[in-house]
């Protein structure tokens, strides 16, 4: 095979301008796809960051629970029930809701995500929260997420300067007694952590015997999957037992499927794919049209249809790879640019690179397949 003239390569590289246009087009399509998928993944990652920060092995929730933005509660007794099972070390509960935070400087209010935790146990894997648990044991004291949007006020700065700060949360006085870092997401422009009793004070309509998320920590060496299936079998249908990853997946699925966000980014990626498809099709189609007599000549000389199809597919693959390389390099640049502008965690992942390379190959061979129809019209009997 290697002794044969690399027809596809020679044809693709002969016309430098056309090649440059093709590479630019494919690279552009790839960048579009990379940026859309990158933003989508970054937003999903930020949405599940609180989930993954939870210090727990298994999670108990209401089966209708979909997102932190609209929680569904269940009876606290269900969580206590799990303590009777082998492998369960300790349990703790989490309350979540959205309240109104008043900016202490300009007095405007804004929705903020409030976590109500038991200050006597570890709820988050966040050192700056766990070190300050004693601070929120006091009634109406709160920890404030310093990566919240600036619209909530310069809380961290004021707190550091004056080491105390008072403002309103749900029209009740609240004392900021510490800061931590979690990050913003679709759900929340900011986060606040309070004790569960403070939480009940902020939301008087909440029933004290209901919780939003039950955290179950297992004994060292206990098999998570095994305990999970045991609990699933034992507990009634009014609660779900999930691993942390499954819990995060529910939140992700909510944003991907139940909101327009997943669609918008998928749509952007599909547009990129179609743009690439059309560009490669144009290139291959005009290649075939321009060389139709030559292809017919090859057929007349005794080259089979299969050979010519092979040449076209090789051309498509060459274009895919030549276009992908500048595409991924430029997309990396776009990621660092976007990351510094939005503070979202956008980075290239191997999975995404492989996925987009696969898409590029599908895109190019797909265009090649459409251009093949033109190739079929190369009839050697017509060239005499």
């Amino acid at each position, binding site marked *: 095979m290697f002794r044969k003239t690399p*027809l596809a390569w020679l044809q693709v590289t002969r016309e430098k301008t056309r090649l440059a246009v093709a590479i630019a087009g494919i690279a552009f399509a790839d960048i579009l796809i990379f940026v859309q998928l990158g933003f989508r993944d970054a937003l999903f990652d930020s949405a599940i960051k609180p989930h993954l920060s939870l210090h727990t092995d298994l999670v108990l929730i209401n089966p209708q629970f979909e997102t932190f933005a609209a929680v569904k509660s269940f009876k606290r007794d269900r969580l206590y029930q799990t303590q009777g099972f082998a492998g369960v070390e300790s349990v703790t509960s989490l309350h979540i809701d959205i309240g109104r935070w008043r900016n202490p400087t300009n007095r405007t209010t804004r929705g903020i995500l409030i976590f109500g935790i038991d200050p006597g146990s570890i709820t988050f894997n966040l050192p700056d929260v766990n070190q300050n648990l004693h601070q929120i044991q006091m009634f109406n004291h709160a920890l404030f997420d310093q990566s919240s949007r600036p619209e909530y006020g310069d809380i961290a700065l004021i707190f550091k300067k004056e080491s105390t700060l008072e403002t309103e949360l749900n029209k009740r006085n609240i004392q900021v007694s510490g800061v931590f870092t979690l990050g913003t997401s679709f759900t929340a422009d900011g986060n606040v952590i309070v004790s569960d009793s403070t939480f009940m004070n902020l939301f008087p309509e909440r029933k004290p015997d209901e919780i939003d998320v039950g955290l179950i920590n297992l004994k060292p060496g206990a098999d998570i999957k095994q305990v999970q299936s045991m609990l699933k079998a034992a507990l009634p249908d009014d609660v779900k037992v999930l691993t942390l990853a499954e819990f995060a997946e529910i939140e992700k699925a909510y944003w991907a499927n139940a909101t327009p966000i997943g669609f918008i980014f998928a749509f952007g990626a599909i547009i990129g794919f179609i743009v690439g498809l059309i560009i490669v099709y144009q290139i291959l189609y005009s290649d075939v049209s321009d060389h139709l*007599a030559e292809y017919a000549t090859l057929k007349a000389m005794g080259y089979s249809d299969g050979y010519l199809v092979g040449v076209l597919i090789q051309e498509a693959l060459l274009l895919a790879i030549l276009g992908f390389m500048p595409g991924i390099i430029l997309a990396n640049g776009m990621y660092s640019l976007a990351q510094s502008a939005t503070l979202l965690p956008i980075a290239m992942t191997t999975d995404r690179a492989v996925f987009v390379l696969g898409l590029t190959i599908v895109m190019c061979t797909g265009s090649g397949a459409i251009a093949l129809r033109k190739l079929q019209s190369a009839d*050697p009997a017509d060239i005499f």
Partner: protein
Amino acid sequence: MQTLDSPATEPVISVKNLNHYFGKGSLKKQVLFDINLDINPGEIVIMTGPSGSGKTTLLTMLGGLRSAQDGSLKILGQEIRSASTNKLTKLRKQIGYIFQAHNLMTFLTAKQNVRMSLELHKEMLNQNMDALSIAMLEAVGLGDRANYYPENLSGGQKQRVAIARALVSHPKIVLADEPTAALDKKSGRDVVEVMQRLAQEQGCTILLVTHDNRILDIADRIIYMEDGRLVTNLADQTIPQG
């Protein structure tokens, strides 16, 4: 079934009672009528006649580019009426084609164009195909143009590359359709003389369709086609020499 090693006296092209039609149903039109033609090894045959007389149609059928419908058509001892696509493709490898337009690959150099013809033959793949291609280009007087792209060659040079491509793998039959139509008198003359010389060296058969009276003298035999019928042995009497 005869093999390719048929005796020298066996015609390389044998056409018997060949009819051909274009179109279907009420639009069906007969374009070839009862063609009978034998061409022997080493013969140079020129086919001439007015436009639309069916010359090119016959040529494409002889080259395995169009399948025969009615009658018998044997090329190199093989019946190709109702032959499969695969069989036709194989047959084409044993025939050299020279077209009115040179039909060279514009993205290949002269040498690579000639090479494409060699690569069709498995036994050539372990030989020095570049050297063979250059030798063939030297034989048509273009040894110094081996690495030129077609766009940098004159019309006559391109046609000579096409001849080198057609002859490099030593086909038993060369089919040429108006090879000199796009060339001036001198280039046209050069081209057919190269064809004639190489054909004699390789002992191959040439069937050449032309309107060009200036080149009729290279033929061993001239056949004349009119309205889809062959009229033979008109050579010296009716057609003025160019």
